[in-house]
């Protein structure tokens, strides 16, 4: 009964989404206030029904209703309650429902908080969000209904993939999807602007906090995914350049470019059509990412084509959304002229470089991700693009980006770099280089060019971010949220760079065969296997090892890596034992019984790896602080384009 209600509310949500799109867009075109009001009510209704539908599916999971196919496939009676809830979005159908719920939440928020916008514009935004929602709900109802019954009901479920039975991965999809879907708001703003054919500073000011909010969710989602891959996939890597990872990283790069380009559009009224194009791109890549991961196209291009209903719908929907938006762009963007000059060393010009490098990296990653799919689809051979490709094409644009970032923050709008800032920056840059040389030699005992550059850039970005705060405090200037957010986020970029440089330069990974009592040395740490025992978890059995780590005769820690076998069957799972430290992680994963009392173990020394995720959290925190800057909450004088002129005179 409950699953049927869930199905029914989903159909109602679709009808309301149609109403939302038709009344909002039609009302805006005909300037009919009643229609536009009806469109807004439909947003609320749609949210209620999607939420009810989501609740129904969650209820089916919690109640272990194995007469529902999706529940029977993705959970099992022994699965703890927390993971039964997380299993709702553990596979294709449920994650689409989560996607729709995120969209409903964003739509509701955008509708509730856009009261001060020009009414027809606001309605167009709501209408476009409705169109996107129609696509997703229709896709779910016609090809991927999560409420489909299983007749006869299964006596027990198949279980959630053990890899997904983990806290970070349970909360990873909702946060990631809030990020993906959040770009829909920026997308809808961009399309509404193109429909109206005018763009003023108020538009950019309105779009910025929404974009920042979506982008910060995406940042946290990606960091969680990376952290999970590190400790749960068992082998200690933190980024694999896997298509699934690239699918979330590409919208992030586009979103990062967008928030920077929006700054120029708001402050100086420049880059208008470019900003709109980025808004369209960020959401298009989110859609592409969702479908790459969830449609099975990555597993096999041909398998994807053998399920024609899903495949054709996906291609059709992508074409409609991306193609429609680009056509609208081609038609209307030429009307949005921006004509103002700026100096070569002005902030505009640095942000232009920021966008150029980010988009270059994005394009090259997109090429590497899609190239194997095209080759395969065209029967030109089976290839894959190795991580070294991605490392190279990402590194090359990022080095100049980081170098320019430190200067760009100190450049004034329009005029360029002031002489006071110039001396300060020279001092910071020089210090960063010297410290990185000395520290590299002192701590790690060797000097390598790329490592030195990496550490120097990290320190340079951190130092020059902090210098903004110092300069403002000295001049007794106020520090608004936008500036504080920028400083924290950029400081976080430096912290992540530090971590990436450290771990990529000095990590040590060693596969060894040890019997109880034997030891192996990694870096200057001694890993001794002292015991092996059987342990029993709630729904698994495991072999657990004690690995005593010591350094210079002093015991540092005891690691407890496990090899788990879940009761529901399937393959064994590796749970790594990790000791977290400020300067390094020590990592042990248990492999197989090799005979003669020996077990295989993977031992690792990972310097500075924590800073990668710490930096990502700082980036997200900075985004959050900037999004809540007070000036975004001021009621926007959306019709007064004159604010643009006022905004250009002062530094941020």
């Amino acid at each position, binding site marked *: 009964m409950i699953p049927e209600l869930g199905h029914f509310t989903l159909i109602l949500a679709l009808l309301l989404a149609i109403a939302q799109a038709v009344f909002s867009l039609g009302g805006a075109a005909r300037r009919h206030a009643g229609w536009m009001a009806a469109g807004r009510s439909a947003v609320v209704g749609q949210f209620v029904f999607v939420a009810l539908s989501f609740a129904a599916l969650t209820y089916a999971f919690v109640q272990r209703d194995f007469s529902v196919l999706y529940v029977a496939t993705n959970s099992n009676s022994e699965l703890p309650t927390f993971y039964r809830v997380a299993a709702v979005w553990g596979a294709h159908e449920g994650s689409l429902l989560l996607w729709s719920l995120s969209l409903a939440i964003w739509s509701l928020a955008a509708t509730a908080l856009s009261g001060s916008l020009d009414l027809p514009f606001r309605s167009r935004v709501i209408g476009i969000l409705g169109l996107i929602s129609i696509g997703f709900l229709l896709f779910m109802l016609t090809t991927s209904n999560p409420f489909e019954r299983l007749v006869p009901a299964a006596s027990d479920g198949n279980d959630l993939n053990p890899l997904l039975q983990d806290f970070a991965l349970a909360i990873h999809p909702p946060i990631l999807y809030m990020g993906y879907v959040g770009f829909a708001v920026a997308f809808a703003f961009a399309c509404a602007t193109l429909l109206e054919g005018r763009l003023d500073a108020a538009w950019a000011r309105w779009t910025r906090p929404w974009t920042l909010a979506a982008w910060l969710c995406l940042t946290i989602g990606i960091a969680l995914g990376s952290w999970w891959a590190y400790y749960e*996939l068992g082998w200690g890597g933190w980024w694999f350049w896997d298509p699934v990872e690239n699918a979330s990283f590409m919208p992030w790069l586009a979103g990062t470019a967008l928030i920077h380009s929006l700054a120029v559009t708001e402050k100086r009224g420049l880059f208008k059509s470019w900003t709109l194009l980025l808004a369209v791109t960020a959401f298009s890549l989110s859609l592409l990412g969702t479908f790459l991961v969830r449609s099975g196209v990555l597993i096999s291009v041909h398998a994807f084509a053998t399920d024609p209903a899903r495949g054709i719908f996906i291609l059709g929907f992508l074409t409609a959304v991306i193609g429609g938006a680009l056509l609208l762009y081609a038609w209307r963007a030429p009307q949005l002229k921006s004509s103002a000059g700026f100096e070569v060393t002005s902030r505009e010009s640095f942000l232009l470089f920021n966008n150029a490098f980010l988009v*270059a990296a994005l394009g*090259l990653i997109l090429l590497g991700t899609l190239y194997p799919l095209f080759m395969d689809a065209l029967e030109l051979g089976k*290839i894959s693009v190795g991580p070294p490709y991605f490392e190279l094409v990402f590194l090359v644009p990022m080095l100049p980006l980081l170098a320019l970032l430190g200067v760009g923050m100190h450049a004034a709008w329009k005029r360029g770099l002031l002489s006071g800032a110039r001396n300060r920056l020279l001092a910071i840059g020089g210090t960063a280089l010297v410290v990185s040389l000395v520290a590299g030699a002192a701590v790690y005992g060797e000097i390598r060019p790329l490592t030195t550059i990496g550490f120097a850039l990290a320190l340079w970005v951190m130092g020059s971010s902090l210098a903004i705060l110092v300069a403002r405090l000295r001049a007794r200037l106020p520090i608004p949220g936008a500036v504080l957010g920028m400083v924290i986020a950029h400081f976080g970029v430096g912290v992540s760079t530090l971590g990436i440089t450290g771990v990529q330069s000095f990590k040590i990974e060693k596969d060894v065969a040890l019997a109880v009592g034997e030891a192996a040395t990694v870096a200057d740490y001694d890993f001794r296997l002292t015991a092996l025992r059987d342990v029993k978890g709630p729904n698994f059995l495991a072999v657990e090892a004690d690995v005593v780590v010591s350094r210079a005769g002093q015991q540092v820690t005891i690691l407890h890596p496990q090899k788990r076998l879940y009761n529901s069957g399937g393959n064994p799972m590796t749970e790594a034992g990790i000791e977290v430290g400020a300067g390094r992680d020590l990592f042990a994963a248990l492999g197989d019984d*090799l005979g003669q009392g020996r077990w*295989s173990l993977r031992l690792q020394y990972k310097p500075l790896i924590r800073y990668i995720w710490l930096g990502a959290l700082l980036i997200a925190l900075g985004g959050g602080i900037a999004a809540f800057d007070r000036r975004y909450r001021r009621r926007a004088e959306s019709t007064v384009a004159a604010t643009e002129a006022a905004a250009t005179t002062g530094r941020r």
Partner: protein
Amino acid sequence: MTPRRKRLFAVLAIVAGVAAATALAMLAFEDNLLYFYNPSQVKAGEAPNDRTFRIGGMVTEGSLQRTEGTLKVSFVVTDYRESIPVHYEGLLPDLFREGQGVIAHGRLTGAGEFVADEVLAKHDENYMPPEVAESLHMPTPARSSE
């Protein structure tokens, strides 16, 4: 600068940027495209002898051999027409199992055996590596003549 010259500069900058990106992509593609071959193709001499590639197929039942107490393993990869022995030293992934699909990365020895530096299995336990699934369903081994 006149607006016209400005536009010229902008266009030149974009062209230069795109050219640089393309050059970078070509350079990065050069060594990092990994080709996939099944055992029949390897037996037919299509796989390169001088560079690394990926081989995939099913692990033959009963073919897994360990040198007791060490990390050295060997197994046979088959596509049910031809088989290639694979040698590896290191940890096998959790999803590795006899009778299931596998992909190994490495190079061919003169003796027609494969020495792997990496053995891959994907995340999902029901998941057969796509290249393997397809090469097993290929009607004739000769299609690869293209």
